[in-house]
């Protein structure tokens, strides 16, 4: 990315108008397939257009996704309008569809995940970017990548048979003993529920937040670190005073990226959150997310309105994650453009 600016290799070589043959009125930029003597090379023309077409494919796919999903949810959009977002009933038999329990489940499980994952991943990022010796940096960076590479469904399997029993037997009773006066920790410990969903999401978004934050911290110019150290700051003071303020917007971007992943994550959550469309204050109670209800009911949805309602959930998910990603990328790019960064972003 950083080299993008100067990388116009071809323009200088054959796109430049030759002083003799070409009239100055035709700027070469518009006709880069002209060879030096002004002949059109058909192969180059075709090749360039073909690659451009494929590149346009991504933009078109994104646009097509928005259009298709809006069309698929048209029935539900028409019937329920904004009431869809605040309705609490999800009753296929009476054809009543309200998304509130799913929106609630998605938001709370994702926020829970952030609450757990943000401090831990910032610790990892600071360690990897600032403190660890080079060989640890490399190997541990790879381990974090592997954490991201484990398929969602495998985390789900592990969640059902390892995490949930552990939460039920150890963590939830302990939380209840210590903090049972809060409504958050009331009810029967079941293992499977909102807490399990939040924990598994935290594990899954940790690599994203950690690796992006590490990269933005590496992009902070070394001169700032050297300045702080030269003033007698300890390593931690250097991080706090020199690195974190510079990297702040990028770290916020990383957290938003993580949030985007958490909101859209499907399989692992579906397997441990309990799948019940209820709004409960207790973290031990089962819940349901938008992605989960789509995964569970989309193939079985009978009736056009039912399918449209599920599609609308998908559309909301798509819109929200799109917006979050847009914001996050802009924030991360801003840090990437700092002059003299220590590492490439």
């Amino acid at each position, binding site marked *: 990315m950083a080299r*993008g600016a100067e990388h116009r*290799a*071809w323009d200088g070589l*054959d796109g430049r108008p030759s002083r003799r043959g070409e009239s100055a009125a035709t700027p070469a930029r518009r006709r880069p397939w002209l*060879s030096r003597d002004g002949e059109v090379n058909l*192969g*180059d023309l075709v*090749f*360039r257009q073909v*690659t451009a077409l*494929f*590149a*346009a*494919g*991504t*933009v078109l*796919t*994104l646009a*097509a996704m928005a259009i*298709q*999903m809006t*069309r698929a949810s048209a029935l539900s959009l028409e019937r329920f309008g904004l009431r869809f977002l605040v309705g609490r009933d999800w009753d296929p038999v009476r054809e009543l569809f309200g998304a509130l329990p799913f929106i609630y489940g998605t938001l709370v499980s994702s926020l829970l995940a952030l609450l757990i994952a943000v401090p831990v991943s910032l*610790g*990892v990022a600071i360690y990897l970017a600032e403190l660890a010796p080079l060989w640890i940096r490399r190997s*541990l960076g790879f381990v974090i990548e*592997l*954490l991201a590479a*484990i*398929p*969602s*469904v*495998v985390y*789900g*399997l*592990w969640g059902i*048979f390892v995490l949930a029993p552990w939460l039920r037997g150890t963590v939830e009773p302990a939380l209840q003993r210590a903090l049972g006066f809060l409504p958050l920790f009331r009810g029967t410990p079941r293992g499977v529920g909102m807490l399990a969903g939040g924990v598994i999401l935290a594990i899954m978004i940790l690599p994203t937040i*950690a690796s992006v934050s590490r990269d933005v911290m590496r992009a902070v110019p070394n001169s700032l670190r050297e300045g702080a150290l030269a003033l007698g700051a300890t*390593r*931690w*003071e250097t*991080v706090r005073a020199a690195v974190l303020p510079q990297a702040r917007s990028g770290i916020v971007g990383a957290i938003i*990226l993580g949030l*985007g*992943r958490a909101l*859209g*994550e*499907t*399989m692992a959550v579906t397997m441990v959150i309990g799948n019940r469309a209820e709004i409960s204050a207790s973290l031990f109670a089962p819940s349901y997310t938008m*992605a989960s209800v*789509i995964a569970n009911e*989309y*193939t079985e949805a009978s009736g056009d309105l039912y399918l449209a309602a599920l*599609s609308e959930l*998908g559309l909301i*998910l*798509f819109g929200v*994650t*799109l917006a979050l990603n*847009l914001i996050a*990328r802009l924030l991360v790019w801003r840090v990437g453009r700092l002059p003299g960064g220590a590492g490439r972003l």
Partner: protein
Amino acid sequence: MNSRGSRRRLKDLLARGTCVAFTLLAVVPLASVLLYLGAKGVSGLSWSFFTELPRPVGESGGGMANAFGGTLFLVGLACAVGIPVGVLSGVYLAEFGGRGRFASVVRFSADVMSGVPSIAVGIFVYTLVVLSMRRFSALAGGIALGILMVPTIMRTTEELLKLVPDSLREAGLALGLPKWRVILRVVLRTGASGIATGIMLAVARVAGETAPLLFTAFNNRFWSARLDRPMGSLPVQVYTYAVSPYAEWHQQAWAAALVLVGMVLVLNVLARLLTWSRGGSR
């Protein structure tokens, strides 16, 4: 003064210790997942697990041949969609796009697309392919996975081609080759091992994807190699078995998950080795 200095040192030590502790904490889930996969999965592996079809509930034995074949088939299809699109778009970005507005829009879309939930891609392909074919099909599954591969491959290709020195391009042009031949014969070939890394990572990612397959390729308990029929796959099979109430299926789910993770890890490690060996030779 001295006590203030030692307080600062203590704070430094504390903060650094916390970072190390958090890092160790972050590795615990990975270790636990791998440990349990090993403990519970290995005993389910056998020859028949790879070669036989699933048996009905109650009968013991049987395997997941349909899911293994299906995953290979679907990933192959995904590659057929994702690799050409990804590589050629990457070529455009690196060789022609530069800093232009169109190229920026493409880059941005790719970045944004890599964050779109895979289940949304599933719905998209459902409305596009499944509804028009009127049935779940392997083709739909392959397309869904292919779409998910594109952003990774595109961005790695671009990054890698930018690292190819301009002198190689100049040499090719000086020999009288047209630009497109230089790109195909010289530039792409130089970047090939790096692009292969990107493709491997993309394959590793989509091989474990479940959500977009649920309502595209669906599932199939039988052997199938037809594009227009539902097809089983390893991740969907793991999901189905894991949420089932049968102990024997749980056992098979662990074994299948072990194979899946093994595949993904091998691809990741190979990709990393390729990167390191390239870095070393330069």
